[in-house]
């Protein structure tokens, strides 16, 4: 009887989350599955079932192909960039004798900045007639089309997002540094270990739990990039920055193809799930090699 009561209480306490999950996750997910086999445009009173046509069309679409490859290109550029920068920030802050919290807050602030605002600032900063470009052209003879080539546009977006997330990941890595037992370093110093060996052989393996978290989070970010791309490049040039979210937005809200956009969104979620699963397995293998189970 007591167990039954406890179960009831458990369900009661879990009910807000369960309701939330049902209304904002499960029902929309089911609706999205249903929409993906229709040609609905959000307005028409009649639904036409099109079977798997939307999925077939999506798999042949240049926009979807671009979204697939652009995401991995972003990952290759963005993940090492943000991990390296947040590691540097975390190392610097960790080494500070005082005011660590204050500095961490400072680095964390860009995370709170609006993507729209920062994109506008970058756009102005890099415009053809900005002081930076006027200087580069006049003094160094460099005429850079920052947002005009797929590679430079992708690099630029990656830098902006890395700037935004560096402070946040540095916060996680700093807590990782704090949890490493200082006695290990002392023992290593007695054994004559140099700074380089100390970092690669002790710090990095012991930082694994924090690194694992930041790596998975940053990989997740690459599948959800939208604001910066929407503001700066619109997915161009030549689909060079066309992310999954950008493609879904274009199809749903510009072309008004809600059914097709749902199919693209489902393909994107499958790709995201599989990619993160594989990467997670590799990271766990690396962890196991260093004694983390």
């Amino acid at each position: 009887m007591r167990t039954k009561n406890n179960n009831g209480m458990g369900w009661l306490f879990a009910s807000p989350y369960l309701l939330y999950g049902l209304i904002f996750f499960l029902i929309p997910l089911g609706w999205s599955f249903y929409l993906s086999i229709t040609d609905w445009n959000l307005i028409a009173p009649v639904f036409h079932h099109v079977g798997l046509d939307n999925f077939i069309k999506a798999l042949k679409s240049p926009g979807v192909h671009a979204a697939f490859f652009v995401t991995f290109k972003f990952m290759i550029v963005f993940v090492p960039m943000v991990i390296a920068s947040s590691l540097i920030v975390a190392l610097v802050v960790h080494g500070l004798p005082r005011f660590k919290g204050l500095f961490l807050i400072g680095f964390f602030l860009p995370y709170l900045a609006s993507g729209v605002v920062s994109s506008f600032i970058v756009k102005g900063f890099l415009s053809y007639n900005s002081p930076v470009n006027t200087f580069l052209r006049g003094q160094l003879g460099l005429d850079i089309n920052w947002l005009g080539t797929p590679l430079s546009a992708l690099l630029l977006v990656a830098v902006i997002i890395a700037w935004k997330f560096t402070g946040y990941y540095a916060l996680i890595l700093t807590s990782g540094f704090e949890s490493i037992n200082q006695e290990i370093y002392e023992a290593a110093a007695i054994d004559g270990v140099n700074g380089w060996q100390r970092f690669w052989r002790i710090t990095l393996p012991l930082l694994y739990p924090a690194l694992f978290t930041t790596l998975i989070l940053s990989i997740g970010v690459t599948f959800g990039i939208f604001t910066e791309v929407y503001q700066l490049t619109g997915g161009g040039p030549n689909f060079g920055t066309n992310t999954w979210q950008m493609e879904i937005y274009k199809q749903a809200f510009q072309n008004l193809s809600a059914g097709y956009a749902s199919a693209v969104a489902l393909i994107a979620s499958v790709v995201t799930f599989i990619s993160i699963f594989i990467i997670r397995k590799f990271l766990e293998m690396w962890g196991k090699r260093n004694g983390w189970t």
Partner: protein
Amino acid sequence: MKMKKAASLLLGASVLAGSLAGCSTGNPAGEDSTSKNGTTTIEFWAAPNPPQQAYWKETAKAFEKDHPKIKIKVSPIKESPTSEASIQSAIAGKEAPTMSENINRGFAAQLAESKAIEPLNKMKGYDDILKSRSMTDTIKGWKFADGNQYVLPIYSNAMLFGWRLDILKKLGYNEPPKTYSEVLDVTKKLKAKYPDKYLWAKPDLADPTAWKRWFDFFMLYDAASGGNKFIEGNKLVADDKAGVDVLNFMDNIRKEKGILTKQSKDPFETGLGIFTDIGPWTLQYWAEKFPEMKYNKTFAFSTPPVPDGTDTKNVSTFADTKGLVIYSSAPENEKKAAMEFIKWVYSKPENDVKWMEKTNLPPARDDLATNDAFKEIYEKNPALKPYAEAIPNAVPSIDNAKYNELQTYIGQYAVNPVVKGEVQPKKGWEKMKEAIEGDLK
């Protein structure tokens, strides 16, 4: 115990239902909204910018004085993320208003295809509106492929090209060039005298976003083709010669290093570029931000340049125009009341005068350049006169429900690669046609 469980579930469900019901804002679709005292309330979504909001609120109040049995609730269209998306969501959620403005012809085609808006020409009083507002000619270009009229145009921005007259004068010209070869001559002289300046400095030329083609390709295409339709119903009927001429024109300017597609800030205002599309809304912006921009001193207007040998009078151009629609989901009494309101607004030219004074947007009237009621506005702001004169030759956007995809192809396969020198104009035109025809099948 079971009772308790059932009671908690019921309570939870009621709270949830109550909070969800709180999200609702209007009458469910189709339900008669006439109150007990016989008053019909209609919901009118106006464009979210302050001048248009103010105009419609004032006009609605004046109408209500004359028509005590009709109440008009004016509210701004939410732009989350776009006004079109908000309207879509409202229709999907059965929360569409009775009527709204700010609807372009392409979006109207999407709405019409889904039977979400009413064919206004089939509603009582429609012909009276056209006559009393003097818009019989202007409305012709608005006829949809199925022969109906779904949108009543409020304003028509006959798009013009702006020229930096001060710089043109330094190059030895007293007025803007009119033909392609004249424009090329200007480009050559400009680059010779000012190598750092460009004829056309506009990042949008390299951007495939659909609406951006209205302000480059369609202006030039309408001029080159004499206003020939681009798509009719589900058929591409574009004038091939005019299309290739436009792309060749762009390519020739590029070859003279006259095009800059890199991001630049206020290129026309700073004189980095000397030629660009200008809508009448820009005049108000310049008055506030760039007071040094003076009509017929620093800048002048011209209709789009045309291929050599083409008549340079009565040149067609693109009409950036939006209008009113009535939603099919509204109850009949609201539709009638909405029509009554529209009839009242457009039976008096002074309402259009007030509109133009508040918004600077030229009302879609045939007599805008000749009607004395507007004389004072042109005296105060002579830069608006060329826009009024161009209205009869202005061609609205295509009325295909897939306009967004189709216009994206124009950028993606033709305009963008041509201005970047990546494709020959004729080849680009063919690729664009192939993509459009493939999608229209």
